[in-house]
């Protein structure tokens, strides 16, 4: 028998507005109306400013470890822009911009990173899951949420975000396999920011694209310039159509770059060349939209100055709101353990002692509440 070809495939890469200001009018026409573009630009600017402030809050001891989102704003924002309000957004920790677009009060993000679980207690109407810090686990939850929506006969879909590093995790492969085999409407959005903390992409994956991993699972896939909000929106529209109308999963690799450190506990200068970072600064998703809007004549320096002033005031107010929330009471850590508190835990709660087993609670004086 002759050797025949079992499969030939290709990965499409979408770029509409590049860093030199070149705009593909054919692909980009009517994709984002000008009024929306201005709004998206303002949202990215606010997110960027809050990111800078969060970094400073951490450095001055007012916040815990924080992962900066700088440079990656367009991916989650473009996705949230295309999704319906009741589609699930199942994110990790570099999707602030998309979460804010959905309606998450920004002080919730600050509260979370200040070390307060209540930052993840999000209005259920927003259809946002808690920020997932273990790598990759949220992809399975997204698959389950979308599967449950399908089970209930709803037209909702889920969109889950993860980094290039997460695509080496078993959970990634198990979620992809499930979604493809069981026809689950999930959009898998990989923010390929080139670095898994200090490990570069070429050491994580020998394939030339992350997008091609989806082919192995029989899933449609595409790569886009993740710093180009137009390209992200274009790919998301394709993904959402397939998921909502045909119940199929879709994979998007948004090629982007982590301009900041992995988190505030990291110093990327120790392992990254400044030239590489500088190259990506030129490809900033915010700068190119600003230049494009100026080209169109819908933006100018005075509007920019006014926006910066507004963003300054708004972020200051966000920080103030986050810091004005009272520290949780030590009762709180027992209250969300079970639907109904079991007797042994209730004893610990009432006595504020974890070593009180065997003691008569009535004989233990309850110490005064101490706040942090």
């Amino acid at each position, binding site marked *: 028998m002759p050797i025949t070809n079992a499969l030939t495939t290709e990965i499409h890469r979408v770029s509409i507005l590049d860093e030199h200001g070149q705009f593909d009018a054919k692909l980009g026409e009517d994709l984002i109306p000008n009024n929306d573009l201005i709004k998206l630009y303002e949202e990215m600017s606010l997110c960027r400013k809050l990111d800078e402030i969060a970094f400073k809050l951490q450095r001055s001891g007012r916040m815990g470890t924080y992962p900066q989102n700088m440079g990656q704003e367009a991916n989650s924002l473009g996705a949230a822009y295309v999704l319906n309000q009741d589609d699930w957004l*199942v994110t990790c920790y570099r999707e602030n911009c998309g979460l804010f677009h959905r309606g998450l009060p920004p002080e919730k993000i600050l509260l979370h990173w200040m070390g307060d*679980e*209540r*930052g*993840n*207690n*999000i209005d*259920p109407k927003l259809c946002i*899951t*808690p920020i997932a810090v*273990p790598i990759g*686990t949220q*992809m*399975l*939850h*997204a*698959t*389950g*949420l*979308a*599967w*449950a*929506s399908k*089970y*209930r006969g709803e037209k909702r879909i889920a969109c889950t975000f993860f980094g290039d590093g997460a695509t080496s995790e*078993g*959970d990634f492969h*198990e*979620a992809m*396999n*499930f979604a493809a*085999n*069981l026809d689950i409407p999930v959009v898998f959005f990989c923010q390929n920011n080139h670095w898994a903390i200090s490990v570069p992409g070429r050491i994580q994956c020998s394939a030339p694209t992350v997008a091609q991993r989806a082919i192995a699972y029989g899933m449609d896939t595409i790569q886009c310039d993740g710093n180009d909000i137009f390209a992200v929106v274009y790919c998301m529209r394709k993904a959402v159509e397939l998921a909502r109308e045909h119940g199929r999963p879709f994979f998007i690799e948004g090629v982007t770059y982590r301009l900041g450190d992995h988190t505030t506990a990291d110093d990327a200068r120790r392992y990254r060349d400044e030239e590489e970072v500088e190259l990506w600064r030129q490809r900033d998703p915010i700068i190119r939209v600003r230049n494009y809007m100026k080209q169109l004549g819908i933006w100018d320096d005075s509007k920019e100055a006014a926006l910066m002033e507004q963003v300054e005031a708004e972020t200051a107010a966000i920080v103030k709101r986050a810091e004005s929330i009272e520290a949780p009471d030590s009762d709180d*850590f027992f*209250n*969300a*353990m*079970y*639907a*109904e508190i*079991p*007797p*042994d*835990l209730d004893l610990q709660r009432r006595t504020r002692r974890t070593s009180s*087993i*065997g*003691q008569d609670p009535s004989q233990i004086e309850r110490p005064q509440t101490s706040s942090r």
Partner: protein
Amino acid sequence: MSERIIEFRDALREAMSQEMRRDPRVFLLGEEVAEYDGAYKVSRGMLEEFGPRRIIDTPISESGFAGLAIGAAMLGLRPIVEFMSWSFSLVAADPILNNAPKMLYMSGGQFGCPIVIRGNDGAGGQLGSTHSWCVEGMFSNVPGLKMAIPAFPDDAKGMLATAIRDDDPVFFLESERLLAMKGHVPEGDYYVPFGKAVVRRPGTDVTLVSFGRPVHFCLDAAEELAKEGISCEVIDGRTIRPLDIDTIVKSVKKTNGCVVVDQSWSFGSPGSEVAAQVHAHCFDDLDNHVMRVHSADVPSPYAANLEQEYLPNARRIAEAVRSALYVA
């Protein structure tokens, strides 16, 4: 009380089927649960009744289907996840330990996780050490979950039905060695509340406390010891989390002696927890320190004779009781 006698595995299925008829949010997923009726035939006939939408064969992908079920539970469904063996839950440790029991806590109270994870737990089937894990020692350490371990067919039904109705994640441990055991099981709705231990055999000289299959070893030992004039009270704990320490304490205050029998390894186990709590509550009532009988501190042996010796068998329990009572 019904006089109907059925097998332990049928009791499990009856609980699942009745809850699925009652509540459309309940579904079952796992390896081989549909077409094959389950590796241990617990889900026999369920595909036929409920169809592939609710009885779902999964790829061999424990982390995958456990994680998917958690997502579905977050949206308000009530998944029953079958692990062919709890031994295989080890590759799903992140979803079942790092997500399910803390979802409510980490979402500030927003997302509960009403999921039942069930499957075969423990040694005795000569399955070798990698397939004979007894997970109660490891997993009961984690707050936020509940752990149920039935020893009799009626409890299998009543406790599983309670687990499915529970709003928190329940780890439900079934011994493959008990699946063919027959017993009276009530028809219709039947629920056994969590956190309520039961005295399986009343006695006066010493309290034996156990969970799951070793309860039967305790009953065997009590029978033997009765011939020597030693009267054992045998307590079946039923749930490890929540633990019904009150029933145990009440018994120990009566007998003044306690032997805890637990099929997990001794270090940091349900047995050590019960012993510590009994010491704390009954310090002045005890005539001897609490004795513990566990599996030997080695991987579960493959050889049949060694496996029996490895488990906390009736002979070893009887020795511990004599020692507790200072009988040479």
